[in-house]
């Protein structure tokens, strides 16, 4: 019996996880969110930028990690547009091009931000690290036009934004190693301020950069989105997802404890 419990069929666990996801979705429970320091650091940094400052947002995620990273993108965009900051969007991955375009358009529409004046979406260019380095000398040398193929020199907002000297903060929303590229190539070489919002699984990897202040802040997965939504007082998808995530975490903790109890009973019997 104990042996069977310890080697429980993975399909049973899958069903339990599915239930832990589906039930809270319908119950619509919510819990108070405590904001972590790394997320607050991003919020404070953006909140203290002068009104004509520019934030560059890199939508470096694909459809797979959309659920975790798009709520973050939306929350930060809301904050920037409400403060009247200028936003430049781009992506280093082809999958991210359409996703970045959609989220920036949606939030601009909601907040009344104007394309070409309050924000510019540059889309995707191949080359990854070469793109980062190229923008150090001139953004136009890498992105000669925006995502809708409008030449940058015809976009009023870009008249005053030529390279990293005119960008106050880079926020990398990432599901892979791109935050390390920004740190290595733009923070080290151009002294550019970098913040990151990453998938939950990657968070611990970036803590060393946070402590060395190579990152001004860090948003951890869906929780980061929920925390940011709390800071700007606009609960959306991140906050909604927290109840589901809470139940799944509780389930996993319960499973681990249960598995260990069974393990200890068996060990005692064996002894």
């Amino acid at each position, binding site marked *: 019996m104990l042996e069977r419990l310890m080697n429980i069929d993975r399909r049973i666990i899958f069903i339990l996880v599915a239930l832990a996801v589906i039930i809270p979705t319908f119950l619509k429970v919510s819990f108070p969110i405590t904001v972590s320091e790394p997320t607050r650091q991003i919020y404070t940094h953006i909140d203290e930028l002068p009104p004509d400052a520019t934030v560059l947002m890199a939508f470096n995620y694909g459809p797979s990690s959309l659920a975790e990273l798009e709520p973050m993108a939306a929350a930060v965009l809301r904050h920037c547009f409400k403060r009247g900051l200028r936003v430049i969007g781009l992506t280093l991955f082809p999958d991210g091009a359409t996703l970045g375009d959609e989220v920036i358009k949606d939030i601009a529409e909601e907040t009344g931000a104007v394309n070409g004046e309050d924000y510019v979406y540059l889309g995707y260019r191949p080359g990854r690290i070469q793109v980062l380095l190229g923008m150090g000398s001139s953004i136009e040398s890498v992105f000669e036009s925006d995502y809708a193929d409008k030449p940058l020199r015809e976009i009023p907002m870009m008249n*005053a934004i030529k390279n990293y000297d005119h960008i106050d903060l880079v926020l990398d929303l990432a599901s892979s190693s791109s935050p390390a590229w920004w740190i290595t190539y733009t923070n080290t070489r151009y002294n550019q301020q970098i913040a990151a919002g990453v998938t939950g*699984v*990657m968070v611990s990897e970036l803590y060393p950069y946070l402590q060395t202040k190579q990152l001004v802040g860090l948003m951890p997965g869906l929780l980061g989105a929920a925390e940011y939504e709390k800071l700007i007082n606009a609960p959306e998808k991140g906050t909604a997802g927290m109840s589901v995530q809470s139940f799944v975490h509780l389930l996993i903790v319960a499973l681990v404890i249960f598995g260990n109890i069974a393990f200890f009973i068996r060990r005692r019997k064996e002894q």
Partner: protein
Amino acid sequence: MIFEKMRQQIVVYALVLVFGCSVGFSQQPAPPENVNAFDTPNDAGASITITWDKSPEDGTGAEAVTGYHVLRKSGDSEFEVITKSPLTAGETRYVDKGAKGGPAYTYSVQAITASESTVNSAETAPVKAVGNWFHFGKRWIFLALILFSVAVVYSIYHARRGKEIFIRRIPGLEAVDEAIGRSTEMGRPIMYILGLGSVSDVATIASMNILSQVARKTADYEMPLRVPCNDPIVLNVVREMVRTAYVNEGRPDAYQEDDIFFLTESQFAYAAGVDGMMIREKPAAIFMQGTFYAESLILAETGNSVGAIQIAGTDSDSQLPFFIAACDYTLIGEELYAASAYLSREPMLIGSLRGQDYGKLIIFGALIIGVILELIGVTWVTTFFQRV
């Protein structure tokens, strides 16, 4: 006559008053002093740095200086303002990144007040932006790299002289033979996954080195070696490499090019494709070596579910816990790089590992000394490393 004299006196008083008022109302601030322009060190030759001492009225007095503009000219041309918006009061440094190599530029710094009256500083001497061949700011990193390289090269050539070098046991690599043997006994294929890295990732090259050793063994046992690739360049390099390994083992006929194939570049489509293969073909041994992201656990759990013996290795540290949980053996970080030396037992390769240990020793030493000095209040070591 008296009237004439009075008239003259009134005119003089009026002139004095007007002059006094004009001086009083449009009083200019004192200009910034000691303005100095020099070629920015350690750059490609596209910038000049300008420094100055604040105006004495910077932020103080009735006509306080509220900001500065930097002006530039070349040759006999007129000065042009090069700062888009005024630099805030208190600033004493500006880097002109538009000073492309070629002409010599002269600079002046203009102090501005709230009433928008301005005063220019004295001109600087003409300066040219020149590119530097060596980045002196990176000299310590360069020195450390040279020292470490010398230690590695010395160890390699020391090993060449045939001295036996101890190398600790790495269970994951000891299990390679076991995994291949098990596949042979079961008559099931071996699957080798190189991860999502490109050929420029050192982890992918390390993985190729292990694959080369695995390929020699599968050539001997005539076992099918399935390698689904995610990167087009990796695919072509791996095909050539495995073919050479088979030729070197004297089994060119056993080499099957179709077993090394391109699946997709998309991360999760790749995971889905490889999972499908695992379930259909039920390989007896699965190697996962290289750079992995979120797909690591999806692959490892599927491999676990088909009962394969799994040997993983990655330098993607956030994926290590997943591999440790779902695989039989995991090479952690640097073990992946040591694998080629371990498997081939080539003295020169093993020697390089000793060089690596010297590097670690130096870092440990620096860490311990740094911590002790910091605890007793000596901070220059920490400050030095922070600057590096």
